[in-house]
């Protein structure tokens, strides 16, 4: 969809703003550029719609070298949103939204239709069409700014810190709204920010830049898991790395390695004795190869004790289990959703290797919330 091929920009006066960028974005991807001030994010973005022309290298949109396309035509096919919102104060909301459509010579009727339709995307009523930008709140104005970039159904949209000027609450809700919109409309988005939270929240992939170069280009998860270098680590911030821990830990890192087990051919009285000794109300049943068979608990034994006497005759075979490698964050969700007390962990051959209990999870959550303070205090 969008490809940078050895792209460099040297400004008049010799400033090397970006050097030798190589990257490729897929259709429908949400790409976020992030990096310290002056690292070349805006320069990179503006080269895409030729507001700035590269000194070297080529940029391809849908396989076409943009330098071979008429810049005016190119820009009409690419949505563009800037930080300062940039609505035209002398135009009504309708005129602002449908500006590109007017440039594309759509008839008045259709423009109006489209403007109305777009307003509903952000839950605004058609009576806003007649208003002027200064009559809207900052958040509403930026919504219009976004709609304006969507009007001609552009498949690629560039956004330079679009939510930077908004207060945190408005920004938050606009981010959510926008992410949803993007999923629904399947746009390719190139988004500049210097807010890491925003990047992590929105991006499918993040381009971390420094001094005009790409330091790391990867998914948010991967960047949190494997920061490329100290610069990235510092940029992400210690705080987020700690917070990210439950996201990247797997269950075998937190599970209890010695679950209490019985064999299927043991007697119920042996099982009860074991429960008493280890002070548990449930036992995991395994065979001689450590393969998990099922479980028994006190109640089950209590009901059937008089009729049968082997564990395998009483045990429940249907049970929830996890394979090694499952992420803790997914586990937490299961525990909370289904009010589960524990889940056994098995390897790829169904052999029991451990057990995760609510207590284990509490430790993880506790660590990630207060662990850092403990270290510093």
């Amino acid at each position, binding site marked *: 969809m969008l490809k940078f091929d050895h792209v460099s920009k040297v400004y008049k006066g010799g400033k090397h703003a970006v050097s030798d960028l190589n990257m490729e974005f897929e259709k429908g991807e949400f790409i976020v550029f992030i990096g310290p001030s002056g690292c070349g994010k805006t320069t990179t973005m503006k080269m895409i719609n030729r507001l700035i022309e590269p000194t070297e290298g080529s940029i391809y949109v849908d396989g076409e070298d943009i330098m071979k396309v008429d810049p*005016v035509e*190119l820009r*009409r096919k690419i949505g563009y949103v800037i930080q300062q919102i940039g609505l*035209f*104060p002398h135009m009504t909301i309708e005129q602002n939204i449908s500006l590109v459509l007017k440039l594309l010579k759509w008839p008045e009727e259709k423009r109006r239709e489209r403007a109305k339709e777009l307003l509903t995307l952000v839950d605004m009523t058609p009576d806003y069409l007649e208003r002027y930008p*200064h009559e809207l709140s900052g958040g509403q104005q930026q919504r219009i700014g976004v709609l304006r970039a969507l009007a001609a159904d552009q498949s690629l949209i560039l956004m330079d810190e679009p939510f930077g000027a908004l207060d945190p609450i408005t920004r938050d809700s606009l981010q959510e709204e926008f992410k949803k919109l993007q999923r629904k409309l399947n746009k390719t988005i190139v988004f500049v920010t210097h807010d890491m939270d925003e990047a992590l929240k929105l991006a499918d992939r993040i381009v971390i830049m420094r001094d005009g170069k790409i330091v790391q280009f990867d998914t948010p998860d991967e960047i949190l898991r494997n920061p490329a270098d100290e610069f990235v680590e510092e940029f992400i911030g210690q705080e987020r790395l700690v917070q990210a821990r439950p996201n990247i830990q797997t269950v075998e890192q937190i599970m209890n390695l010695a679950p209490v087990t019985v064999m299927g051919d043991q007697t119920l009285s042996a099982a009860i004795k074991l429960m008493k000794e280890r002070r548990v109300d449930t036992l995991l049943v395994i065979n001689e190869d450590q393969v998990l068979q099922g479980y028994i608990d006190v109640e089950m034994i209590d009901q059937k004790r008089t009729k049968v006497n082997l564990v395998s005759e009483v045990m429940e075979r249907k049970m929830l289990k996890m394979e090694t490698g499952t992420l803790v964050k997914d586990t937490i969700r299961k525990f909370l959703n289904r009010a589960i007390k524990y889940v056994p962990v098995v390897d790829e051959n169904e052999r029991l290797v451990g057990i995760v209990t609510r207590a284990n999870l509490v430790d993880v959550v506790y660590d990630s919330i207060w662990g850092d303070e403990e270290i510093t205090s």
Partner: protein
Amino acid sequence: MDTMISFLSENGMDLLVKTWEHLYISLAAAGLGVIVAVPLGIALTRIKRIAGFIMGILSIIQTIPSFAILVLFIPILGIGKVPAIVALFIYSLLPILRNTYIGISGVSNNLLEVGKGMGMTNWERIVQVELPLAVPVIMAGIRLSTVYLIGWATLASYIGAGGLGDYIFSGLNLYQTEFILAGAIPVTILALLTDLLLGKVEDWVTPTGMKKLKVNA
């Protein structure tokens, strides 16, 4: 009062003719000024490097006494209405040009970039963004210029262009106050009315969104 009435009864028709001449000279000059200075002002915003130079020259011309300019054109254009209009036109240039330049330069770079980024051609940007946003400032220049021209057009009578200046000068020559007043009063009224009228025009051409902006600010 009696002299006024007798003056009017004797010269009423003539007064109307001269007022019309006066208005014609001033407005023709101002009209030409707008036609030349507005596009020139816009052009100068594209070549900022020489903009200062050109406006400097116009400022210098502006300091040449109006009378001198009028006389200067006699060898080239002779006497009558044409040289008067040309001379006044030159005077109208600077205020209109300067205001156009300031108005257009004052349009935020941000908005221009948005326009460009959305795919407006240069021409579309001038017509749909820059001019509407600069219109209040440009109109202020046109108003100022036109009102000045109505005053200066009095001098045009010296080179035979007619207008209300005829009364004032003959009044001065003949020591007749009623003639001076017969020229000066209509000139003042003309100036005031024109200002009022152009105020209305300004209001009319200013985009609605910007009017509301002003009220709020």
